[in-house]
């Protein structure tokens, strides 16, 4: 089982890194989420789940006994993973909200098209056609923005 788990973790890392190399913000965020889940599984693997088998017990004190019977599986990584999952959930919620407000504000999802037009040449990619400048955005009523129209 550990071999399969290792391959799964490797697959998640690969998928996460691949998505993070893309230019779409949403894909980067999805990549981060997959990467973080790979890391969570990795910690779980550190607790050596293979050993919960016929002769290795789950870490619960059996009835009538005073303490855990050797050998038992390590419960600590599961506590760590639980914490990491909760933190990861909060962070992903924040990044998605950030992506939404970036799209509302700038009308783009492409990280290259996000650059401040005052500092660099205007982007030439197709996606950048939607790019609206800061001043134009401020003068338009919120309901008329491209981002809110598509996003809601």
């Amino acid at each position: 089982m550990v071999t399969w788990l290792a391959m799964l973790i490797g697959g998640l890392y690969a998928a996460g890194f691949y998505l993070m190399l893309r230019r779409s913000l949403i894909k980067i965020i999805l990549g981060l989420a997959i990467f973080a889940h790979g890391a969570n599984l990795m910690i779980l693997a550190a607790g050596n789940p293979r050993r919960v088998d016929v002769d290795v017990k789950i870490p619960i004190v059996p009835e009538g006994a005073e303490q855990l019977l050797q050998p038992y599986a390590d419960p600590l990584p599961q506590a760590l993973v639980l914490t990491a999952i909760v933190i990861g959930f909060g962070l992903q919620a924040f990044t998605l909200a950030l992506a939404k407000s970036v799209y509302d504000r700038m009308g783009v999802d492409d990280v290259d098209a996000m650059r401040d037009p005052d500092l660099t040449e205007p982007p030439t990619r197709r996606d950048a056609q939607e790019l609206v400048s800061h001043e134009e955005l401020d003068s338009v009523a919120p309901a008329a923005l491209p981002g809110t129209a598509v996003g809601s």
Partner: protein
Amino acid sequence: MENLLVLPIVIPLVTAGFCLLASRRIRLQRSLSLFGMVALTIATLALFDAVRSEGILVIQAGAWPAPYGITLVADRLSAMMLLLSAIAGLAVTAYAGWSVGERRERFHFYPLLHVLLLGISGSFLTGDLFNLYVCFEVMLMASFVLLCLGGERAQLEGGVKYVILNLISSAIFLTATGLLYGAVGTLNMADLSVRIAQYENREVINSLAMLFLVAFGLKAALFPFAFWLPASYHTPPFAVSAIFAGLLTKVGVYALLRVFTMLFVGDPDFTHTVIGILAAASMVFGALAALSQKDIRRVFAFQIMSTVGFMALGIALGTPLAIAAVVFYLAQDVILKCNLFMLGGVADKLRGSGNLDKLGGFWKTKPFFSILFLISLLTLAGVPPLPGFWPKLALLRSTIETGEGVLVAAVVLAAFLTLFSSIRIWSGGIWRDAPPPDLEPTDLAEREKDARWMMVPAAGLSGLLLAYALAAGPVFDYAEAAADQLLNPQVYVQAVLGEGN
């Protein structure tokens, strides 16, 4: 006395809660916030004093013995960093009321600031790698929101880069933590220090050390992981930039210092050489890049990168003198970077722009402000007797002792470039005649009034820098004692695990 260890975590938490309760009343929030920061400063001062007189303080949460329970530890380095972060927090709270603007204050600026301090204090106090991860995340979450608060276009753009790169760093940190647990079966730092030394497979430990180097290097803004910093630090209000510049990268440096003096010390020929190369590149690149920038905050952002390089070089050298230099460097740099960004904010308030082309003319009209700026710039450049000079001197001396010509050249070049960059800011931003103003005169009177109040905390921090200059001897003695604790982890191990180990 051990119970003091809980206060730097509890005080910001309670203050954040009270500020949230008062969320509609900004004036009340300001006073509550200031009161909380004063209480935090007093508590950390007491802790600092206790650690100095009694040695390492340890508390085991719920009396569960280490390595099974949650351990809080304060040695000399932690106690110093806690005190510095409280002072920086106090200065920024006093500064924020005049500079952040009511709109942002209404959107929970103060509770977020206290949660940020909570995460930072937790990172300095924890004796457990996984809890360090949790405290990092608390700190990061608050910093994400503070950075994006206000939702200006530039903020969101900088925020995206900052958030993504920091999340990658966190995921790498988590991976490294999981693998380390799989290898040695513990995450308590004192226990790790013992078990890693006994672990026979050096390749595994070296790979883990590199993962931690990437994770903490990203947080500390070490070359080549640093590009999120100049892309984001110039976008939020100056108060937010000031607290970030003063504290966030230093938390990364602290983690590097902890890990590479206590845990990964078995194969310094490999690990510490890699850190040395990154440090030298960071010093020179940061100082060079600072010269190419016009925006005052981008100049300082690249200077942060260069400074982190100096500190990482000390970690790489690892001699008692070099580590003492790093501790001294940290002691003055938290105050210095915070102060530079706050003074930049005053200039921005007066002229409506932080661009060096729009500044200037302060020497004739604002001599007090100019002198405050001069103190900080000379400290940045490392001019004696100001406190920037002594750690640089100690670092240069320990680099010469190793006989590595390239590193000596990098230190001298970076120090020279930093001096040049400081002169550029001084002559372009302060000394030369003012360019024609763009602001309305009615607006200007109000800005002058705000700027005067914003200078009060900046003057306090500048006074602290002068105090460092006067007390350089005692500070260096303290730094040497802190380095001694770091380089002899058995004292730390005994304090945490008990006498039997």
